[in-house]
């Protein structure tokens, strides 16, 4: 028994030592434990999976998007071989020639719609549960920004295949931007990249879709998940086991006087 535990100790040290080394410098192990080994209310159930479902759809978008970026070419110049715009030809090649390219493109295309739907459902659930109330106001606000950024990602991605649908929807979109007061015309001119919407515009929309908006949304999602973990998920408000439910008066006064001083910092 003693010999065995000594061996165990060695193995444990071999595994734990590097983890400890990392944890001492970054807090990564403590952070992971903090994220995984926490309690959630007992009555949390399927309705509260919509957020992580949206996250999954976003991860699908990230992975398929990276693969598409390896084969897609954002240029509206005419390809001398196919006689079509280079962007369009690269989309044709991804769909028709690349092994499973159709699946990657199809998943990216439909994943976008699924992502938007899940964001709306998730928001509806949070609204129904009143889960945006104290202390989760900032979680809600980052969520609204995630929805707005997600819709902008959808809009900028729509142009990239450079087909008729994409092109004309974008022309309308740019003209719509132009109707905004003050910055509108300037923004429209920037997005159009010249009198004719062509390669300049395509490169700008590609940069927005590939770099700016994903960067923004990943940052927002990070803050959002941190806040969800820190503040906890709220129970269904109609649940008889609701975490934080009001207790019969006698018990309530007892609990309150003890906890308010400890938790809230007083008044």
């Amino acid at each position, binding site marked *: 028994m003693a010999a065995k535990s000594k061996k165990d100790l060695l193995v444990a040290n071999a595994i734990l030592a590097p983890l400890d080394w990392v944890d001492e410098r970054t807090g990564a192990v403590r952070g992971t434990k903090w994220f995984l*080994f926490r309690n959630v209310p007992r009555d949390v159930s399927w309705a509260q999976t919509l957020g992580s479902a949206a996250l999954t759809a976003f991860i699908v978008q990230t992975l398929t998007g990276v693969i598409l970026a390896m084969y897609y070419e954002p240029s509206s110049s005419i390809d001398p071989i196919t006689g*079509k*715009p280079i962007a369009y030809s690269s989309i044709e090649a991804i769909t028709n020639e690349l092994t499973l390219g159709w699946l990657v493109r199809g998943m990216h295309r439909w994943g976008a719609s*699924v992502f938007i739907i899940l964001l709306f459902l998730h928001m509806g659930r949070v609204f129904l549960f009143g889960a945006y*109330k104290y202390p989760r106001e900032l979680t809600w606000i980052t969520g609204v920004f995630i929805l707005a950024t997600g819709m902008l990602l959808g*809009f900028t991605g729509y142009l990239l295949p450079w087909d008729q649908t994409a092109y004309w*929807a974008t022309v309308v979109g740019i003209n*719509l931007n132009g*109707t905004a007061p003050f910055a509108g015309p300037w923004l429209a001119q920037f997005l159009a990249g010249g009198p004719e919407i062509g390669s300049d515009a395509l490169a700008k929309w590609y940069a927005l879709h590939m770099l700016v908006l994903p960067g923004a949304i990943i940052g927002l999602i990070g803050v959002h998940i941190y806040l969800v973990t820190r503040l906890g998920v709220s129970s269904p408000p109609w649940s008889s086991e609701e975490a*934080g439910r009001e207790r019969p008066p006698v018990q309530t006064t007892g609990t309150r006087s003890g906890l308010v001083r400890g938790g809230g910092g007083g008044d």
Partner: protein
Amino acid sequence: MARDLGELNREDFARYKDDVKKEGKPFFPRAIFHDTVMSFIVVCVITALAVIWYYDADGVKPGILGPWYTEPADPGTTDFVPRPDWYFYFLFYLLRIFKWPETVFIATVGIPTIGLMLLIGLPFYDRRRERRPLHRPVAMVAAVLTILSMAVLTWKGATAKEALGSELVTLVPKWAEEQGFADNPEAVKGAELFAQSGCLNCHTYMGQGAGNLGAPNLSEIGATNDASYFVQYLTNPAAFGNTVMGSYAYLGQENLAALGDFLAASKGTSSK
């Protein structure tokens, strides 16, 4: 009742944390199990959509989930009805409701901005502690009305029909006769370009067209200016204070001249 809202809120949350700690269930593995099942379903749905989309369509030939792609973008021939992705249909349809020039910005900027502000501000103007839906009648009615109006606008946007240039061009002889420019080949050529270049996706003319984005009726536009003015206008609408309409300079001087002649000849049926 001396205690303020902030204090009550903090008490509620302290009780929440206490309950979760004492009677909650571990996130890992209990709650994360639900999340994993749901994520698996999400990936399956996305894959199924991609497979159905791919196998039901063929190139530009659409299946039930649309084509792989439409024809390559071509700024020259605008015989195409602009249509955004489905989640912008509500905005797309709002534009048809606010179609007078002075009101376009209400649909394009005003309503979306107000909507976004209302969403961001929600936790600040709805400060009650009550979370049960049945005890929040105002919030629930507002939510139902929002969902209904978004659904109706999306549905209307999805089913809105706009005439294709190929159908409109058959009306040119009728326009030429009624406007009295049938003997002017340049104006007839301009009318054909007008029908095919998507002008009627925004403008109206002789009872045709969408009336989008506040674009005016052009049936009697010829009474206001001459052909050279229209050519300049088409080349750079922004120079005339029109930031909604894009430039049509890419059509080329010859086509623009024909369009100018057509517009100048469109003096309305009454002044023929």
